[in-house]
């Protein structure tokens, strides 16, 4: 339970707000690489602001506020040229740094263009995603987390959700929901629709724990029949502050990305790298992406797969949940811890320091802790994950299933 004032403080992400100030210290994925290859300029919304994202013919990316500084027409409809982006209305031209380099209708003997500047951000490409930084200088390094740079077969499921990103992040430090939402509820839906829900998702939680570390919070659990020696406790998996969760197991490596579009909308991405030991990986000139359906034609949530169940709970909590009337219990201590962490990091950002996870030294690859033997379910976890999760909608589902099966066969000891 929170005061209304604190709930607002935690959920408002626009410019000038405490949370918006914190969140502007991080890089965000704002497009798929293939999108700007298909058409070199597009609109994107991030942290309550609209931007024009573009790629010039030399392959360099840029991001500018959508409204042209001249008379506010949309630069997302701009003309991409060699040196930058030109406004479609009167032809003002901006380079990647936001400098105005041409005003065709103005006389040559004026320095007007030197007095105009768009507030440009920074853009990089990594792992099939285009990443943007719209915060203050100095620009931090883009963290190259393992899933984005490791060998394997990738795909990206995505959807846009009409709710705050914060409640989705709170779900990342809520281990108990797995047992109920993806266990009991999944079983109930399965019985109604005539399928068997994966039994490993319904195992009872005996103990949960949370550990702060350099990238966020490691979530741990001991399930019935297991001990603290099992991966779920010994290794766990992390909430990667402030907007990701790293999950996986059995050769599936995934980053769940929750981009705060504005106070009440979130871009949800499931970035998955399939990397089973012994697997044979094929070339991927483009990382496939696919939209995850979460609501049917009658307006009801689709709840017969794992992420659809999660989305149902996030969206039904409301665009911004009223946390003044919630009732947290001891099982929600991860949620309390995360809110405290956000408040702590807000203060660091407000004072000009680098909040958690902002890095200044480039690293080729950042490995995150993540359990291998998920739910001590063995290799069946990978097939359950694909059949019962959002991967069922992947355009390469059958190839991925075969990848994991072939890898498992290749690792089996030869018969004597």
């Amino acid at each position, binding site marked *: 339970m929170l005061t209304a004032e604190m709930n607002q403080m935690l959920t408002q992400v626009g410019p000038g707000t405490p949370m918006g100030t914190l969140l502007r210290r991080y890089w965000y994925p704002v497009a798929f690489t293939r999108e700007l290859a298909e058409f070199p300029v597009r609109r994107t919304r991030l942290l309550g602001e609209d931007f024009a994202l573009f790629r010039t013919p030399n392959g360099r990316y840029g991001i500018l506020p959508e409204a042209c500084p001249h008379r506010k027409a949309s630069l997302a409809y701009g003309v991409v040229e060699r040196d930058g982006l030109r406004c479609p209305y009167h032809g003002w031209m901006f380079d990647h740094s936001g400098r105005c380099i041409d005003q065709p209708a103005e006389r040559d003997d004026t320095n007007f263009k030197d007095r105009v500047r768009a507030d440009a951000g920074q853009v990089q490409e990594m792992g099939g995603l285009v990443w943007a930084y719209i915060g203050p200088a100095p620009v931090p390094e883009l963290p190259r987390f393992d899933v984005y740079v490791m060998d394997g077969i990738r795909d990206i499921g995505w959807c846009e959700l009409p709710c705050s990103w914060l409640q989705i992040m709170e779900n990342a430090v809520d281990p108990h929901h797995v047992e109920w939402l993806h266990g009991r509820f999944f079983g109930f839906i399965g019985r109604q629709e005539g399928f068997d829900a994966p039994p490993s998702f319904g195992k009872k939680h005996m103990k949960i724990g949370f550990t702060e570390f350099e990238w966020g919070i490691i979530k741990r659990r001991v399930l019935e029949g297991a001990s603290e020696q099992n991966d779920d406790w010994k290794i766990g998996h992390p909430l990667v502050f402030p907007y990701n969760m790293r999950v996986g197991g059995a050769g599936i490596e995934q980053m769940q990305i929750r981009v705060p579009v504005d106070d009440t909308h979130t871009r949800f991405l499931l970035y998955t790298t399939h990397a089973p030991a012994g697997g044979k990986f094929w070339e991927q000139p483009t990382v496939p992406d696919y939209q995850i359906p979460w609501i049917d034609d009658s307006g009801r949530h689709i709840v017969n797969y794992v992420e659809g169940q999660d989305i149902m709970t996030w969206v039904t909590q409301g665009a911004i949940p009223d946390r003044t009337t919630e009732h*947290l219990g001891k099982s929600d201590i991860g949620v309390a811890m995360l809110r*405290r962490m956000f*408040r702590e990091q807000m203060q660091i950002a407000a004072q000009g320091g680098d909040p958690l996870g902002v890095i200044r030294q480039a690293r080729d690859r950042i490995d995150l802790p993540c359990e291998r033997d998920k739910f001590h379910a063995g290799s069946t976890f990978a097939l359950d994950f694909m059949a019962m999760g959002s991967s069922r909608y992947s355009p390469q589902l059958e190839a991925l299933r075969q990848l994991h099966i072939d890898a498992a066969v290749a690792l089996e000891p030869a018969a004597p």
Partner: protein
Amino acid sequence: MTSAPELGSAANARGPTARPQQNLAAGPQPGFAADAERHRRDVPRHCPRCGTSLLHGAGISVEFWQGADRVFHTWCASCRWTGDIIPTTQMIGHEPEH
């Protein structure tokens, strides 16, 4: 990203569960108003270590319940003290079996 409906469009807002944003400043919704009022009444106002005000975002207190206790998980932005504050209604010598 590609082919997504514009944010805030009818396609995104449809469905019985896509609720309008609540006016948080208007106070608690009916039903749990008493609990919300108790939270506002009892939320720690000063840091137990340095005495600095915790109000108006100068810290955070998240309330959760454990048995009969109301626990305020609290952090002070001034001295960075972190701890749980539990209002006491009676002193229990030995916890009954449960």
